[in-house]
């Protein structure tokens, strides 16, 4: 059960946690797939859940199931306390000043759409520009395209270089008097590139332009502090950081969130309704119309407890070594070409093999129990940049180990044999 994480919490800051033992906290990892022990290397798509998260969700439904912010009865108070407790855990985890700045959403996608529609759309018109990068996930492209279509503003894209890094000279050049908003990924899901967000945020600040970070792929791998970063908005997904699906959050600076109109109307987001007039609720509830994903938020809270017990610095160091070993191993496979060679990488490695389509790689390694993602990774412009329809991508989490890398390498040899 979650005892492993608790034990580790006790020994935190003393020595490196036993990552090998943490694996036992994840029930899904303990199974055979196609006759082989599961080797799960698709963590950028979604991460597995520790027992503590699964039982937090089950516990809510078993014991505390009630709506939040409504009743005065005991269960409703329990549910509300746990739901709001999760908000406080997330606030601490990302270093926000106040829980008023933590809006629960369905995930990163909804968080970005919220900012696009409620913040940006009323502010821009023809002649204004929104700046993104060539590294973005579709969910950090399409919402901005929609605002541009709705308002006549135009979308500018800072291109990538051959290593899969954003060309900073382009980024600075495109950041102009016309720029009204900047949205960049913290970490790329397709290539694993860690963006130099410090420099990007500073550049935007200097021009007084608000900036959003898509943090979906950063939080599972590194310590994030939104006040240190000094970004205006930060979007995240619980399911990428060992929590349940269907929940995530938008961090926004209180001053910005306060000035924004609501995103959706309904219950919970109001303080008073009559047919003549409606007064909106305070932050963050103004943006949380309707009954939220209560169980999801509670599960996210449990995931954060779990990560805190290990320590994000420990996770970062462990993964750095693992990804370096994986890169070394992959470089020994004949005909394998890494797609993207960023100086700073977290989590994901994209590659292709001469003469073997990524889709076939995916099917063949799956027959060996190895789960990787193949395709465009919801980042078609990244694929176009490299002139490829698709790549194969192995993506790591702290519960992966050297044996997983070995399994991947052997499965890739198998691919080469099938097509030999």
């Amino acid at each position, binding site marked *: 059960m979650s005892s492993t994480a608790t034990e580790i919490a006790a020994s935190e800051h003393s020595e490196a946690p036993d990552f090998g033992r943490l694996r036992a906290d994840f029930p899904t990892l303990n199974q055979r797939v196609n006759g082989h022990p599961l080797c799960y290397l698709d963590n950028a798509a979604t991460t597995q859940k520790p027992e503590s998260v699964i039982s937090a969700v089950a516990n809510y439904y078993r014991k505390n199931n009630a709506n939040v912010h409504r009743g005065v009865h005991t269960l409703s108070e329990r549910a509300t306390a746990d739901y709001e407790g999760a908000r406080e855990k997330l606030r601490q985890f990302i270093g926000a000043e106040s829980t008023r700045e933590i809006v629960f959403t369905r995930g990163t996608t909804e968080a970005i759409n919220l900012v696009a529609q409620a913040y940006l759309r009323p502010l821009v018109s023809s002649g204004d520009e929104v700046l993104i990068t060539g590294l973005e996930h579709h969910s950090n492209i399409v919402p901005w395209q929609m605002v541009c279509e709705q308002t006549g503003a135009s979308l500018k894209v800072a291109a990538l270089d051959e290593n899969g890094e954003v060309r900073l000279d382009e980024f600075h050049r495109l950041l102009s008097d016309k720029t009204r908003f900047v949205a960049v990924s913290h970490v790329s899901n397709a290539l694993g590139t860690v963006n130099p967000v410090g420099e990007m945020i500073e550049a935007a600040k200097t021009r007084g332009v608000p900036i959003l970070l898509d943090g979906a792929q950063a939080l599972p791998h590194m310590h994030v502090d939104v006040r240190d970063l000094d970004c205006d908005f930060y979007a995240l997904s619980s399911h990428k950081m060992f929590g349940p699906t269907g929940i995530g959050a938008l961090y926004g600076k209180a001053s910005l969130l306060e000035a924004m109109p609501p995103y959706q109307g309904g219950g919970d987001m109001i303080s008073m309704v009559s047919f003549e007039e409606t007064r909106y609720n305070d932050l963050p509830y103004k943006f949380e119309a309707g009954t939220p994903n209560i169980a999801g938020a509670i599960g996210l809270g449990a995931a954060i407890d779990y990560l805190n017990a290990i320590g994000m610095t420990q996770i970062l160091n462990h993964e750095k070594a693992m990804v370096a070993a994986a890169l070394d191993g992959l470089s020994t496979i004949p005909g394998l070409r890494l797609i993207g060679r960023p100086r700073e990488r977290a989590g994901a490695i994209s590659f292709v093999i001469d003469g073997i389509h990524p889709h076939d790689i995916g*099917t063949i390694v799956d027959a060996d129990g190895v789960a990787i993602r193949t395709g465009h990774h919801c980042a078609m412009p990244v694929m176009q940049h490299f002139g490829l*329809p698709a790549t194969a991508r192995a993506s790591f989490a702290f519960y992966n180990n050297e044996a997983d890398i070995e399994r991947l390498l052997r499965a890739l040899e198998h691919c080469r044999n099938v097509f030999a």
Partner: protein
Amino acid sequence: MDLNDLYRDVIVDHNKSPRNFGDLTDADHSAQGFNPLCGDELTVYLNIKDDQITDVRFKGQGCAISIASASLMTEKLKGLSVEDTRQLFGKVHSMLTADAPDIPVDEMGKLAALQGVRAYPSRVKCASLCWHTVIAALDKRATPVSTE
């Protein structure tokens, strides 16, 4: 699941050396097909005379299953009537998807090599893309077909 059942020798061979691959400059029918999920794209060209397919070629890129399927299809279609092609599409489709298909092996010929796809639901679209595309070409559809 046996991988050898999917990647049979015929399939590996037709992927490596696709038959009837390339442009057909004087084609009187053609259509494009996409599989957005994996980025496969095919163009199928046909020449039809007196309701018979006299020539068929294809080009594009895709996984081994989609390239081999297209290659095998072009071998099969040459000389077939339009009506027979449409009927064959139905049979191929049920071979790729139906639970207990009655595969007319004689009629299918080498196409039967694709029956292993049935065990891999995510790959059915790869194998059927060329067939959807050829039907679009027969229908003279201008918009590309998409498997999504």
